[in-house]
């Protein structure tokens, strides 16, 4: 019997202070027969830092929101086996339900194994699927692998949802001996962090999935394109590739077979459009990340114009499981046309924010309310944004929509890569639409006119609306522009850039109209449209507001009601925050 303490150290755990907890624990365990190990992210980000106590492989207790001052009690508990001293830190059954309602395949080892140790990954089954494929007696041919993936119904998790087997097969069939397998870990959608978590917490699962892909299409080189903002992911992946090479899973004649494959990491340099597969290839070749016209598709002519296959991190993270458990087991989960599970990054105004992996076919309501615990701080649900800058907002009336590629697309949003940003009634939908157009206008690579100029014009119209300068006809003008950009743009960035505008117009048109016609922001967000006033009944004439007003717009004698001069007011809201009597109102 041996006991072990595991400290969750993904980027978010570290930001919450997990390093400090681990270094405080270390001296307390000196000379004791207890191991202190690092694990990745279990996905319960709102409870970080998280410390797990194990006896052999059995989880004794999960302690949450741990701070360095708790470490003495934790060390004591694990040494003596008496957990009463840490009872206060134990996760509540309610919070634990966040995990028990999930079905984890891509995330199966996240937060459980040590991402910096290949031994730990192997104990959890890493490299057994590739071992089976390459075994001399009952191995699988590349065609067998592709067939198994076809049966599973696995579709790309990077956004478009294209069947994985089809892409693999096209690359396999393409002429030529030099082929490449590329993993898209650019994860540009703001608000999404599933891929980061997988790489930081379980890099060997990604490597194994890529090895299987490389074997299936006949590639001799595999490249992971990781965004530069993920330094920890890059570090752990480098370490994992090193260990896998030492162990004979990467390089020449892998596991004694005649399959050889090299691995390489390429760090991105900060450009959202490089998540688009052809732009990513340009960037890999050391060029500006400008998309290419398709066809030809990468399967025919990709990296250095050789047949190439690109998949997302989460897509690869499912592959080894499918080989081990069979395509049918994966296809048994989900809906008619969406199989298996999907990981979502649940964030925004949600009570329990983190990583959620669920079988396709669950409803949005189940994910947001049952698993995520609903809206935090007593707010009311207003919308959920899915698919980031290419997606849309889904309103409360459609919360019973099931998670499925087609059903979500019908709402005007998309499945996307898995960002799920929840908004409450304090979020202004017009300014959300503007937020996304600011983003796409900035990230447009400039190659095609529709995207470069179209997104800019949309951004300008939205800016004038939130600044109170909206005009009659703006909504119609935006709709016309949106259609033109969607139809005329070269790549997915431009083609989908209008989605955030179209979907908010579809469900929240009244909010646009209030901004344009009544110069009013119903959720009190757009500063230019806020009107502050002082209620003379409640004002005691304490002068706090007048003294704090940065532009001296408030006048009034001591102990008499004060007044705001509307033409001088800059709508900063300072008076409202300093008033102790609740006399300042906003409309």
């Amino acid at each position, binding site marked *: 019997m041996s006991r072990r303490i595991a400290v969750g150290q993904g980027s978010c755990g570290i930001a919450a202070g997990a390093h400090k907890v681990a270094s405080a624990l270390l001296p307390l365990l000196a000379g004791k027969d207890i191991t202190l190990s690092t694990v990745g992210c279990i996905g319960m980000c709102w409870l970080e830092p998280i410390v797990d106590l194990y006896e052999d492989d059995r989880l004794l207790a999960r302690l949450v929101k741990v701070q360095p001052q708790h470490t003495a009690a934790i060390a004591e508990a694990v040494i003596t086996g008496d957990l009463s001293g840490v009872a206060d830190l134990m996760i509540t059954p309610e919070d634990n339900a966040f995990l028990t309602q999930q079905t984890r395949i891509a995330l199966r080892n996240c937060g459980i194994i040590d991402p910096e140790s290949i031994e730990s990954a192997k104990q959890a089954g890493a490299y057994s699927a590739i071992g089976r494929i390459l075994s001399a007696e009952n191995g699988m041919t590349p065609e067998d692998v592709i067939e198994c993936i076809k049966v599973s119904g696995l579709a790309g998790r990077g956004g478009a949802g294209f069947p994985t087997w089809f892409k693999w097969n096209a690359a396999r069939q393409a002429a030529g001996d030099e082929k490449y397998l590329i993993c898209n870990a650019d994860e540009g959608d*703001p*608000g999404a*962090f599933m891929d980061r978590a997988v790489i930081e917490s379980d890099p060997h699962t990604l490597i194994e999935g890529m090895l299987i892909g490389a074997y299936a299409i006949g590639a001799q080189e595999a490249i992971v394109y990781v965004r530069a903002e993920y*330094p920890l992911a890059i570090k752990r992946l480098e370490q994992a590739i090193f260990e896998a090479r030492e162990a004979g899973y990467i390089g020449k004649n892998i596991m004694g077979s005649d399959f050889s494959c090299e691995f390489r990491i390429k760090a*991105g340099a900060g*450009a959202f459009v490089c998540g688009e597969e052809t732009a990513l290839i340009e960037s890999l*070749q*050391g060029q*500006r990340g400008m998309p290419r016209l398709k066809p030809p598709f990468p399967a025919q002519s990709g990296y250095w114009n050789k047949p190439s296959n690109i998949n997302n991190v989460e897509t690869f993270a499912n592959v080894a499981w499918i080989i081990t458990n069979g395509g049918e087991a994966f296809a048994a989960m989900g809906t008619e046309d969406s199989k298996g599970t999907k990981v979502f990054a649940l964030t925004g105004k949600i009570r329990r924010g983190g990583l959620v992996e669920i079988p396709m076919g669950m409803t949005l309501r189940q994910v947001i309310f049952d698993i995520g615990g609903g809206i935090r701080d007593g707010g009311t649900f207003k919308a959920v944004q899915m698919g980031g800058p290419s997606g849309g907002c889904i309103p409360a009336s459609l919360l019973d929509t099931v998670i499925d590629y087609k059903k979500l697309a019908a709402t005007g949003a998309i499945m996307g890569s898995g960002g799920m940003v929840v*908004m409450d009634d304090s979020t202004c939908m017009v300014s959300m639409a503007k937020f996304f157009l600011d983003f796409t206008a900035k990230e447009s690579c400039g190659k095609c006119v529709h995207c470069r100029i179209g997104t800019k014009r949309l951004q300008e119209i939205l800016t004038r609306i939130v600044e109170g300068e909206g005009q009659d006809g703006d909504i119609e003008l935006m709709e016309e522009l949106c259609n033109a950009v969607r139809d005329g743009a070269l790549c997915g960035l431009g083609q989908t850039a209008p989605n955030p505008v179209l979907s908010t117009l579809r469900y929240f048109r009244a909010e646009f109209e209030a901004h344009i016609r009544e110069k009013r922001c119903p959720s009190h967000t757009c500063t230019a449209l806020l009107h502050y006033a002082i209620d003379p009944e409640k004002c005691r004439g304490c002068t706090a507001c007048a003294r704090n007003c940065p532009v001296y717009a408030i006048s009034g004698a001591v102990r008499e009601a004060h007044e705001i001069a509307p033409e001088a007011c800059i709508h900063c809201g300072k008076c409202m925050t300093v008033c102790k009597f609740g006399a300042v109102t906003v409309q």
Partner: protein
Amino acid sequence: MNCECSRQHSDLSLLEPVFAEYADVKGSLITILQHAQEIYGYLPSDVIYCIAERTGETPARVFGVATFYTQFRFQPVGKYLIMLCDGTACHVNGSARIAAAVQEYLHVENGGTTEDGLFSFSIVACLGCCSLSPVMMINDSTYGSLTPELVLEILKDIQAKEAAE
């Protein structure tokens, strides 16, 4: 071999190991620029000319690639680079208030550096810690669940530490 482009006075010999590893590997321009930025903190123009010469590219193409990507900087940055996230999750959770607090306290614009050269401030999209939003990074450390008060505390801590040195 040394480059002739010495309009500025960066120590170009520091680039030699980088060239030794990558100059002949096709498609390595971005990697070389990343290493150069690590060495100099930004990309001085003499360094860019030197890279062009040694990789056989035109300076225009090297500038073209470097300016395409937000990671590359053409001005020196402060000792502490504050990257404040304004991704979707952080935006919804009030990153604008944090930005205002930083700007008011340090008197810097987005993309600017304080007069004492201590802090540079830049607003970015998504650091991948969305569940702790609003989030910022200062050099390699990530800070989550920010409030205007907390962010001032963090900045003051750094200033105090620097003053003590």
